[in-house]
C-alpha cells in the first residue's frame, strides 16, 4: 500500500478549492438552519445562480468579470426573495420541499436546449475566468510534495476562496452575536413566541435566507472560476446534500463547524477513494473483489461516507464542534 500517495491525495482534497467551495455553501446553510431553523435543501440553486450569473455576463454578453460577480450574487438575492416570500409564511416542511424543487427546476431550465443561446444549455459555458487568472501573483510552477501538489492557478483560487471562507465565517459570527442574531436564534426555537414579542419573524427569516444564499452564490462563483466554466451537471441536488453532510459533520450552529466539516468531508472522501483504488491494484486481493472495486471507487467512497454519517448520527450526533446538550434541549 502506498500510504503517502493516499494521504497526499486526501490532504490535497481537504485543503483544495472543492473543500473551500463546500465550506462556503455549508456556512450559508449554517446561517439558514443552524441559527435560523430554515430547512434549505436547495443551496445548490444559489450556487448555480452565482456561477451562471457570472458566466453568462462574461461568456454570453462579453461583459467584464467584476460585473459578472455582483450580477450572479444579485440573482441569488432575487432567488431568495422569490423562494422566501411565498413560502416562509408556511410551515418549515413546505419551505424545505419548495427549495429542493425550485433549485432542480432552475437547473433543468438552464440546461434546456432553448436556453442554449444564453446558458450554453447542455454544453455549459467556458473560458470565463481569464481576467481572474491574470491577477494571479503566484509564480508558475507546482507547489507541494508527492501527490499533495497544486498548480499556481489552483493555489491562486485557493487563496481567494479561503479568504472568502474566513470573511464569511467572520460575517456570520458577528451577525449571530448581534441583537439581530439573537432574534434569529429565538425564531429557530419558537417562531410564535418571537412573533408574540413584536418581532416581524418573516422579515428575519427572509434576511437570513438571502444572506446565506448569497454566501452559497459565492461558493458557486468560486466553482466557476476554478473550472473557468460552468455546466449544469455540476449543480445536481446531491451538491446540497454534500454541503449538509459537511455541516452536520462539523457541527450545527458553530462558527468553525462548517469549515472543518467541509475540509474533513473532502479529506475522507478523496482519501477513501484513493485507498480503494490502491486496494483494487493489490495482488493479494481475490480477483472478483478487485473487479468489483475497479472503476467504482468514487461511488463506494460516497457510500462509505454515508455509512459513516449514519454511525456518527447514532454515536456523536452533535458533530465535531457541536454541544450534545443542545440536542437534548430540542426546540
Amino acid at each position, binding site marked *: 500500500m502506498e500510504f503517502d500517495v493516499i494521504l497526499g491525495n486526501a490532504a490535497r482534497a481537504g485543503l483544495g478549492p472543492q473543500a473551500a467551495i463546500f465550506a462556503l455553501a455549508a456556512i450559508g446553510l449554517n446561517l439558514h438552519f443552524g441559527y435560523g431553523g430554515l430547512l434549505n435543501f436547495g443551496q445548490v440553486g444559489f450556487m448555480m445562480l452565482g456561477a451562471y450569473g457570472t458566466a453568462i455576463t462574461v461568456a454570453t454578453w462579453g461583459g467584464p468579470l467584476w460585473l459578472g460577480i455582483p450580477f450572479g450574487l444579485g440573482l441569488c438575492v432575487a432567488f431568495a426573495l422569490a423562494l422566501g416570500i411565498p413560502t416562509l409564511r408556511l410551515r418549515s416542511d413546505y419551505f424545505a420541499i419548495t427549495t429542493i424543487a425550485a433549485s432542480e427546476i432552475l437547473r433543468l431550465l438552464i440546461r434546456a436546449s432553448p436556453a442554449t443561446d444564453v446558458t450554453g444549455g447542455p454544453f455549459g459555458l467556458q473560458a470565463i475566468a481569464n481576467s481572474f487568472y491574470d491577477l494571479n501573483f503566484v509564480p508558475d510552477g507546482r507547489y507541494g510534495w508527492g501527490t499533495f501538489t497544486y498548480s499556481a492557478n489552483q493555489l491562486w483560487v485557493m487563496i481567494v476562496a479561503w479568504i472568502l471562507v474566513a470573511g464569511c465565517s467572520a*460575517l456570520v459570527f*458577528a*451577525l449571530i452575536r*448581534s*441583537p*439581530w*442574531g*439573537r*432574534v434569529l*436564534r*429565538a425564531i*429557530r*426555537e*419558537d417562531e*410564535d*413566541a*418571537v*412573533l*408574540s*414579542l*413584536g*418581532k*416581524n*419573524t418573516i422579515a428575519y427569516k427572509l*434576511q437570513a435566507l438571502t444572506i446565506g444564499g448569497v454566501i452559497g452564490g459565492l461558493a458557486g462563483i468560486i466553482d466557476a472560476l476554478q473550472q473557468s466554466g460552468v455546466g449544469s451537471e455540476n449543480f445536481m441536488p446531491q451538491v446540497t446534500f454534500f454541503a449538509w453532510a459537511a455541516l452536520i459533520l462539523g457541527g450545527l450552529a458553530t462558527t468553525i463547524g462548517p469549515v472543518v466539516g467541509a475540509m474533513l468531508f473532502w479529506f475522507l472522501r478523496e482519501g477513501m477513494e484513493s485507498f480503494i483504488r490502491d486496494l483494487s491494484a493489490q495482488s493479494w486481493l481475490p480477483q472478483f473483489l478487485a473487479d468489483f472495486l475497479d472503476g467504482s471507487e468514487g461511488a463506494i467512497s460516497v457510500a462509505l461516507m454515508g455509512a459513516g454519517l449514519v454511525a456518527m448520527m447514532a454515536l456523536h450526533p452533535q458533530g465535531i464542534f457541536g454541544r450534545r*446538550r*443542545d440536542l*437534548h*434541549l*430540542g*426546540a
Partner: protein
Amino acid sequence: MTTATATAAAPAPGWKQDPILVVKGMRRAFGGLLAVDVDRLEIKRGAITAIIGPNGAGKTTLFNLLSGFDRPNAGAWTLDGLPLSGLRPHRIARLGMVRTFQLTRSLARLTVLENVIVAAQAQRGERLDHALLRWLWRDEEERARERARLLLQRFGIEHMADEQAGTLSGGQRKLLEMARALMAEPKLVMLDEPTAGVNPALTQSLLTHIRGLKEQGVTIVFVEHDMDVVQDISDWVVVMAQGRILTEGRPGEVIADENVIDAYLGRAHTDPDGAPPAGEAGDA
C-alpha cells in the same frame, strides 16, 4: 338566569367607563362549529379581568383572535381606540398588547437572560443594517441587559440567568414567560392559564406578580380554570360557554350565578328533568 341578564345588561357602576380593549361582533367558525361568537366585550383599563369557562368554551381561540394569531370571520376590536383588525401578531404586540401561551414557550437553546432581552422593543441592533455597527447599539443593549436582569431578580430566577432556558423547570418557565412579556413593556398582558401545572406555592408567587403588574398600571386579562385563583385576584370575571359570553360581573357574584354552575358542571346537576333553554343547544 335573571341575575345573569341583570349583571350583563347593567354592570356595577364605575365599570367600563374607560375600556382599554373593546371587542365588537367577533365571530370565528371552524367548519360548522362557531368557536367564538362575542357580540361585545370591554376590558377595563388597569384592572385584572379573568375569562373563565368550561373546556371548549372558546377562551383560547378568543385570545388567538385578539392577539392576531388567528383571523376572525367577522368583527372588530380596538386597543386604546386603535383598530387591530387585520394586523399581524407582531404589530399588535408592538402596540402594547402582549400575550403568553398556555403551553410555555421558552426559547430552549437561548440563555434565560437572552430569553428576556429578546422581548425588548425597538432595539436598533435588531435591524440587519445596524447589526454589524456595534457602536450604534452597544449602550441600548447594555440598558436592555440591565433591565432584563432586574426582571429576573424580581421573578426570582436571576441565578439561572446564564443557563439555557431549556434546563428550567415548568414553574420557572412560567415565571420566565411572564418576565419576558413584561420586558416588552405592554399596556395590556394576556395570560393564557398562567398557573396551569404549577405547584401551589409557586401559584401564590405568580399571583403576587400579577397583582404587582396591576399596581404598576398594566391591564391584565387572563384565562383560568382554578376558581380560587379567580376569586383571589380578579376584579372582573367574564364567563364564556360555547363561544359566547354567558355572563360577567364581580367575582363573588359570578361564581354564585346558577348559569355559571350549570355551564361548568352540566345542566343535569341542578335541573335533571329540565330541557335546555332556547339558544343553548346541547351540552358544554
